[in-house]
């Protein structure tokens, strides 16, 4: 638990310097206040929206007697329909994510970004949740804690579990997207109406391929390897492939109307957080 607390602390610190996020700013021109985003139509909410003539289906408790006393008619007070966004998170926990060539594993960086983003969103009043966690998404510190627990208990699966996403839910998906089956998973989630945000976590060694000499490459999942007598000779062709793969992921995301951001673990996390925040706020 202390590990998580430290991580949460670090994430809080990271997100502190950023302006609060407002999801769906286009829906929210009037209410600049944090957290609650008015839908600008009558509904369930606390802010006054309009008075309207009483009609028969209205409950008598809905009558605003003060307003009614001012005139001949009976008025009902309507409130604005306010709805918070639900943002789901998922982070690839497979052995591939445990790789690091520098100081930070891809998974640790993904965790940090995830919680920082979640912290920001909670401050903005959004409901956040980790796919597969217990309980419903909520907009509270408690939700963050619950997310953290779920993250560290999530096992080693690579793909998000199929929780009952509602249409319009957002999913922020941290992974390295190196496996082929992520594309199918993306399609399936998209069919359920999920708006996805892919965050590709990339280790510098994966991108730059700084190896040379006789090297045996082994899969972190075990079982497979590849030996090169002179690793530096394959550098150029590998880089081409890696870039192509990255573009393929980005294209797949774009086709579904999702966003895709790339984060290198040797870069500062703030820049990526800003980019992510922009990406989520833009939809």
């Amino acid at each position, binding site marked *: 638990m202390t590990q998580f607390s430290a991580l949460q602390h670090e994430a809080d610190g990271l997100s502190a310097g950023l302006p609060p996020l407002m999801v769906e700013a286009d829906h929210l021109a009037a209410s600049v206040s944090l957290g609650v985003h008015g839908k600008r139509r009558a509904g369930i909410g606390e802010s006054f929206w309009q008075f309207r003539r009483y009609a028969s289906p209205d409950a008598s408790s809905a009558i605003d007697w003060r307003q009614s006393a001012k005139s001949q008619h009976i008025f009902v007070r309507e409130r604005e329909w306010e709805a918070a966004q639900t943002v789901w998170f998922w982070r690839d926990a497979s052995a591939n*994510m445990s*790789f690091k060539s520098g100081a930070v594993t891809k998974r640790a960086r993904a965790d940090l970004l995830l919680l920082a983003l979640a912290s920001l969103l909670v401050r903005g009043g959004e409901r956040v949740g980790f796919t597969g966690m217990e309980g419903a998404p909520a907009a509270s510190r408690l939700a963050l804690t619950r997310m953290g627990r779920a993250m560290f208990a999530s096992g080693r699966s690579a793909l998000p579990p199929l929780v009952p996403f509602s249409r319009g839910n957002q999913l922020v998906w941290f992974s390295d997207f*190196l496996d082929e089956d992520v594309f199918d998973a993306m399609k399936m989630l998209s069919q359920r109406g999920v708006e996805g945000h892919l965050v590709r976590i990339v280790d510098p060694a994966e991108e730059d391929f700084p190896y040379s000499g*006789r090297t045996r490459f082994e899969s972190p999942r075990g079982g497979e390897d590849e030996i090169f*007598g*002179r690793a530096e000779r*394959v550098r150029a062709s*590998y880089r081409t492939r*890696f870039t192509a793969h990255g573009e393929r992921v980005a294209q797949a995301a774009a086709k579904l109307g999702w966003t895709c951001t790339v984060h290198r673990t040797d870069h500062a996390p703030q820049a990526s957080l800003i980019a992510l925040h922009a990406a989520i706020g833009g939809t």
Partner: protein
Amino acid sequence: MFGFPLSFGTPLILTALLALPVLWWLLRVTPPLPRRTLFPPLRLLRGLQDEEQTPAKTPWWLLLLRLLAAALLILALADPLLGRSPKLMTTGPLVLVVDNGWTGARDWEARQELITDLLRSARGRPVAIIPTAGSVPTGLLNEGEAARITRELKPMPWPGDRAAAAAALGRFNFAAPPALYWLTDGIDDAGSKALRDAFKRYGGVSLFAPTHSPLGLLPVTRDASGFSLTAIRANAGAPQDVEAGALGVRGETLAATRLHFKRGETRAQGHISLPMEVRNATTRLAIAGEESAGAVQLLDRGAAQRSAGIVSENASSEAQPILSDVYYLERALSPYAEIAKGGIGQLLDKRISVLLLADVAKINGADMDRVKDFVSKGGVLIRFAGERTTNGTDDLVPVKLRVGGRYLGSAMAWSAPQHLSPFTATSPFNGLEIPAEVTVTRQVLAEPSAEAQNRTWAQLADGTPLITAQAMGSGWIVMFHTSASPGWSTLPLSGLYVDMLKRLLALSAGTPARELAGLTSLPPVSLLDGFGHAMAPPSDVAPIPAKGFSRVRVSPRHPPGLYGAHEVESALNIVRAEDRLRPLPDSSLQAYGNTHARALEPYLLAAAMALLLLDALISLLLRGFTPRKLRWASAVLLTFVLVVPQARAQGPISEKAALDTHLAYVKTGLADVDSVSQAGLTGLSYMLRARTSYEPPEPLGVDPERDDLSLYPLLYWPMDPRAKTPSPKALSRIADYMRNGGTILFDTRDFTLGAVRGPSSPGEQTLRRLTTALDLPPLEPVPADHVLTKTFYILRDFPGRWSGGKLWVEALPPAPKNGAPPARGGDGVSPVIVGGNDWASAWAVDSNGRFMSTPSPGGELQREMAFRFGINLVMYALTGNYKADVVHAPALLQRLGNERVPQ
């Protein structure tokens, strides 16, 4: 080989060096093990081809290293030798006759090396090794057998039999004329001629002899004060010193002596003096550094047991024990001997070694012969005079006795009781101290005769014999001319009596313990090996019958050692009293050790292993293995090194203070007061540096609330009414500081106000306020003889900026009335010194070195005095009461001088 003394045992292996180029090629084509790395996007690497698959990337120097290791390995296996091996003269089999009796134990290793060298030279030839002691092989040996036998060959703890070796040599049939070598011990014996004749039949022989001939230790003789030793050697050449020692049960040296062989002599005498108890703890005597069974003389264990038989005809013994002779004899002897009482015949049956007859005038006829026999076989008969003896005795006395006695100091006698005169040099009692209170009032007198004088061991001051003795056979008859009880003299009441009897006990040979124990056959208990070390007896050593033990000679059947039962063990030694060592009369002897060839194999193997290890390390590094754990360990270590000292020191101030001895003042928290303190101590520091050997660095201000006070010998604490009262924690620190030897100078700084403001000036009030909670010792004004007045300068008063105030120190114990010493300091230093003369102001200098105040009323002279006080004070705090002791030095020296001059 090319003039360089290097040869190879198996040169054929050197052809393997030809394979080195092949190895080079193999090493070049074998790719090094790949460096391993995890790589998540492995899928993307699938199907990629690097153009080159033969990475001959092993660096040339690593190849060279490996080749060198391989070459060394090959060279090592070829069994290289540095040095020349002896050349064999003939082409026939090699025959070695080795002297491995006890005399061969010396330089045994050199002999074994020579055998190894000879075997190496005779590679391939059959070998015969004939030891003079131990089993003789019947046939010729091949190389391996010979090497094994050489390794197992040991010097034996019995004399070698050269005649037997000659016979064994004669039994061999050699096809070709053999190469004969005789590895002698340099000692001639009866069998040498036979062996020499045997050699002659085969032609010549090469002789080797040790450079140092062996030494032997003859059986030791006990005497009254210890052991007499005699060492023997073979060649009566240059003078030689050897060390011999008496060893205890665990091999510890109890005493040692130096035996000196004079030029041309083969015997050296020595003596080891030991107290009786230590003598009994001695188990063996040995020549130090001579690893040989012949240089060891084992002592019978249990032989030191002596039993004394006491015979008294005095019937009153039971009724009045304090008047009984037996009582005194028993009390004196019981710590040193086993006591038996009874009739003479009874006692002699018990095989006692000392027979004491108290006032027995005449021994009965039947017992007479037995007693004579007992004495002549080494027993000691000690007789005491008494009432009965005055009427004449039998003739078993050292001197003829007069009938009647002699009374001294009685009413009827002219003369006073007599004291003993000092023992003569020939007396066995020589060296015993005679107590002044020992007097003799009655004695029996010896008939004056010439021999009476010679037989006297102790006499009275007037020259009459008191103790006479006569040797008889190998035993002694000793006569005390006074009684065994204090009736006739005070001798039995003194310690001298005990000492005398103890020495007389040592005179007796003691009864052999084996006879006491009643053993009939003595099994081996512990034996000596050829080097004179104790070993457990092997199973083939036969027990020796007790009766003939003294006639048994050391032989392979009976190796030297201890035989008997536990604690009753008799020693069988190699060297007997009549043994002599004679040198071998040959001129063509070669010394051992000149022809030794050194095998290089182990060194080359070690070098090859080291190179291979280095190669392994380099390979690991090249493969990208970084000893991460090592790095962690060093990081942790570095952290410790860097962090721990900082954790210890409490801060920069403490660190600075701990590195040097600083003067220090207590910070009051008031800027003006603290700056004056700082400047004052700075000025004092200048003076100390200029005038004394103490060179203080810049003074420090300390805060008792925070800082560690224990680093400062002296604290200056100015009092100011504005100062805050210290917290209880600080007070306890200050109390600790004073208790543990620190000194605080409290300066109330307001002496001038004292007269005006009454007895309690503001400074004093402050002092009281700050220190009420402290446990201050009783104080007194500095007495004129206090050590503070003398530590560096001689001072009478202690001015500061003001002059005339009283200085208070811890009260000293009052001065002794007669002749007070010139300085008193008490023990340690006074923890508190209180005064009001504002010293810091007098000492204070500014940054340009100018004085900051004017002392009043004395001016610069007073300032000088203030500095002198400061220097005295610092010296007092640093040296404690040392100076108080120094002023006593003349008196002490005078007393020491007086001691030497007899008064």
